[in-house]
């Protein structure tokens, strides 16, 4: 039920460069899983509110008070490409 084109579309949305084998396998595996999962669509859920939040709590708000930041050298230490005191990336225009 999930064809190759759909798999490629979803992979693009998810930024996954799947190999051809993977695309085929994924189509089969996801279809198989979805076949099973599909069954919930047969339930009568008319008027049932979706659970968007599990805890019965509202308005968790924080005071507008500053907290200490992380030191820059610490955060850049993890960067794949530190550049100009920031995080280097290929330019988005260059596509």
């Amino acid at each position, binding site marked *: 039920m*999930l064809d190759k084109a*759909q*798999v490629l579309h*979803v*992979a693009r*949305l*998810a*930024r*996954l*460069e*799947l*190999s051809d084998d*993977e695309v085929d396998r*994924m189509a089969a*595996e*996801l279809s*198989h*899983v*979805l076949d*099973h*999962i*599909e*069954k*919930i*669509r047969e*339930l009568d*859920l008319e008027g*049932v*509110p*979706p*659970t*968007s*939040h*599990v*805890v019965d*709590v509202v308005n*968790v708000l*924080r005071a507008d008070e500053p907290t200490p930041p*992380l030191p820059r050298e*610490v*955060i850049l230490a*993890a*960067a*794949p*490409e530190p550049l100009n005191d920031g*995080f280097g*990336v*290929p*330019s*988005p225009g*260059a*596509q």
Partner: protein
Amino acid sequence: MSDLIDLTAAQAAERIGAGEIDPAELFEAYRQRAAADELNAFTWVAEAPPTGDGRAQTPLKGVPIAAKDLFCTEGVPSQSGSRILEGYRPPYTATVIQKLADAGAPLLAKTNQDEFAMGSSNENSGFGPVLNPWDRRRVPGGSSGGSAAAVAAGLAPWAIGTDTGGSIRQPAALCGIVGLKPTYGACSRYGMIAFASSLDQAGPLTRDVTDAALILRNTIGRDPHDSTSLEFPGTIELPSAEDLKGIRLGVPEDLTGAEGGIEPGVMDNFKQTLALAQRLGASIEPCRLPHAPHALSAYYLIAPAEASANLARFDAVRYGLRVAGDEDLTTMYSRTREEGFGAEVKRRIMLGTYALSSGYYDAYYGTAQKVRTRIADDFRAAFERFDFIVTPTSPCTAFELGSKTDDPLAMYLNDFLAVPMSLAGIPAISIPSGLSDGLPVGFQLAGPAFSESRLIDAAYALERAIEFDGSPARG
């Protein structure tokens, strides 16, 4: 030294408090065992005991704890079992880990896990599978497989893991130890590398129920860093119950009656445990959870959907693996994620992305969230007649490595008894209830939200009566 590792954490803490054991000696004993581990249970082991002697005054007295790889531990690798985060050392520590350290349980090691907590066998780890100490040809369960194996094998006194759809309870069952998933919101998620935000919860994996209570007591509490964390009403009492008089147990036949769902050996053990509970004074009756059979489907839409968004931050920009950094941006993203994520993670990202995508949201994610409401309603109704709902924790005992990796759906089906409680956000505990063909079986009790103290007490009474012997796994 073998005496030391046969003590439960609570016993060790008591002896330390009485001056009979030196916490540094205890730490070193475990550290050496962990460093010599052959089960691949660890992703990192401390090189030396912690300095300082402040732990004498703390509740946990310096009894060291192993933490699942996905807990951020400052300066220590925290990879959530994934190559995309291989070697990543965070600049901060997860709240529950800090609370445990402050309570006197320093970090002994980080444990192996299924990648991004996605799995039921620990075969999805980017750092190799974990072996079950009861039988090294078999899986320990997942995703907290390393934590469970480590505790069962006596390589750590206790461990903290996470449970999203059974990831504490199921490995605990397969390894013959105790595993507890608290009420959603009871423990802070700050610093836990996220899988599914509305389901993830930190919880203990321990030798016995008392140890689990000790960890829980020192990890609960509202955290200003986590908007979904709550102030736990009341306190966590250490268990003391000697029987189950007046306790009403409900058996949900919508789950336990599932055709071909549960292995005969597991079912036999379950029935024996029920009989034992009855002898202890509990009443046992069937109960209805009409929507529970659909919990697995709802779970495998909600969890992957949330995960697909939670894992979008792994984009090679600020940390983690980078591949093809000299190519264009889209290629860098897509190749990094293709190489850095394992097959199961990719599968779930795809499933989750699809479930949220335009035109499919209502049918999939939207429907799943409605099913979830119904499941929570079912439990609420059941708890008007019953104190606890009981099931086997896992439909099977530890299976052989590689036996289910070809069929994702077969692997997902391992979770069907644990997932309903996760969706409803209610607490559940698994205790070892015996062996089937020499392999451990787990018994699960689930209670209403915030019923942990009573739940633990009931589990304790049962544990006393079962007298499970976990020492064979400790070698």
